């Protein structure tokens, strides 16, 4: 059993409980346990693209420094890596980590602020998304071996969104032609449905004051997947999940007739396939209930 220092980020405790709980359960089954950093703080969600705003770089560096301290309390084989589930955290932490490693002036300024809390970042951390751990450390063959409940009948369209792949230094896979979600979905026994809009931005934070933009993006993403025969989408970002899930419900009321597609986090699919208790999925938080689809396909009864 390898234990990893795990950074949840702001949403995994509120809207995306099912994402976190299934990820932790699955990680234990695969002998790569995610252990939460005890005193983490929000990374700031989006990274500042300005060069001169140091304040917005403090939170992510603090996460790295606290994760490093956390690793000292774990095992000897625990790597100097902080593992994220949210793709926005993945991108923000990776960008800032890269920035301070290459710009000592910036690091010094941030450390000056961290010192007040008796913390310091020594450039000795790497940031990994859980999908990278699944692919590179655990391996899809190993995951396939642990499947007790193959997801037969699920036709999944992988939706990467932007922050798993952008910018280059935060990309977990090929920027224009990723495959990690496809391999994962296949190893769980489900069918992959390719869609051209796998990384068309969902509109992200525009949901707050420009939801018409999000509506049109969600329509494009879901329609493209549906036309190609998908009956569900898989995502890795709590904001993509909320936008696609919630706005489909709104759109359904506006334009009746088309059945919405349920949205799963990749760890929820893994939990279903690896026989993790169904309640950890927190399907009650979803706006498009995935249960009828799972029931129809005989996938909601746990072990067969």
């Amino acid at each position, binding site marked *: 059993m390898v234990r990893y220092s795990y950074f949840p980020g702001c949403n995994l405790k509120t809207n995306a409980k099912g994402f976190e709980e299934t990820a932790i359960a699955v990680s234990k089954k695969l002998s790569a346990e995610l252990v939460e950093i005890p005193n983490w703080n929000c990374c700031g969600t989006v990274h500042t693209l300005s060069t001169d*705003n140091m304040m917005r770089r403090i939170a992510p560096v603090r996460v790295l420094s606290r994760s490093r301290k956390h690793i000292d309390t774990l095992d000897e084989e625990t790597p100097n890596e902080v593992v994220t589930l949210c793709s926005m955290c993945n991108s923000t932490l990776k960008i800032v980590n890269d920035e301070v490693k290459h710009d000592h002036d910036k690091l010094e300024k941030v450390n000056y602020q961290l010192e007040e809390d008796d913390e310091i970042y020594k450039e000795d951390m790497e940031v990994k998304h859980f999908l990278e751990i699944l692919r590179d450390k655990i391996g899809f063959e190993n995951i396939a071996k642990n499947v007790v409940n193959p997801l037969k009948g699920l036709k999944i369209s992988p939706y990467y969104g932007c922050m798993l792949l952008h910018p280059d230094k935060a990309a977990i896979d090929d920027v224009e032609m990723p495959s990690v979600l496809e391999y994962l979905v296949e190893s769980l026994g489900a069918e992959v449905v390719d869609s051209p809009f796998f990384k068309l931005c969902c509109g992200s934070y*525009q949901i707050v004051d420009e939801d018409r933009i999000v509506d049109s993006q969600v329509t494009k993403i879901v329609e493209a997947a549906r036309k190609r025969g998908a009956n569900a989408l898989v995502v890795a970002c*709590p904001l993509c999940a909320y936008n696609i899930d919630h706005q489909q419900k709104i759109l359904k009321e506006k334009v009746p007739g088309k059945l919405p597609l349920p949205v799963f986090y990749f760890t929820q699919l893994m939990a279903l396939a690896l026989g993790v208790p169904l309640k950890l999925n927190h399907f009650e938080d979803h706006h498009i209930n995935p249960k009828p689809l799972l029931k129809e396909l005989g996938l909601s009864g746990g072990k067969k």
Partner: protein
Amino acid sequence: MSFEYIKFGKEEKDFIEKIEEISGQNVYSCYQCGKCSAGCAFSSYMDKTVNQLIHLIQVGQKERVLAANTHWVCASCLTCSVRCPREIDVAALMEAVREYQLREEPEKVKISNIPKEVLDKLPNIALVSNFRKKTE
């Protein structure tokens, strides 16, 4: 072909310099190929496309740049930045225009105007990122 005379004095040069300083990008690297606008998921919502906005920055037309909605429609998905053949961080230029404006008027989104039920319903990841991009 139409053309117009524009002013290009100290004020214009100062604006360009400030945008370059905030973004860390050289705006004259852009040769107007339009790949950013072609790949942008939100071009249809913009009154100036991304490369048009960059052109206006190149010639220092501050009023026209700030009057456009381009940089506010941008959702920082960074597709333009990873595809730019001149390796310009295009999204950083959009951020620089936002920042330029926010440093004068710090609230593009007035949090107090958002209805409580909307605030209650939205996930914190949406609120934090929106306020980070649209308030100073």
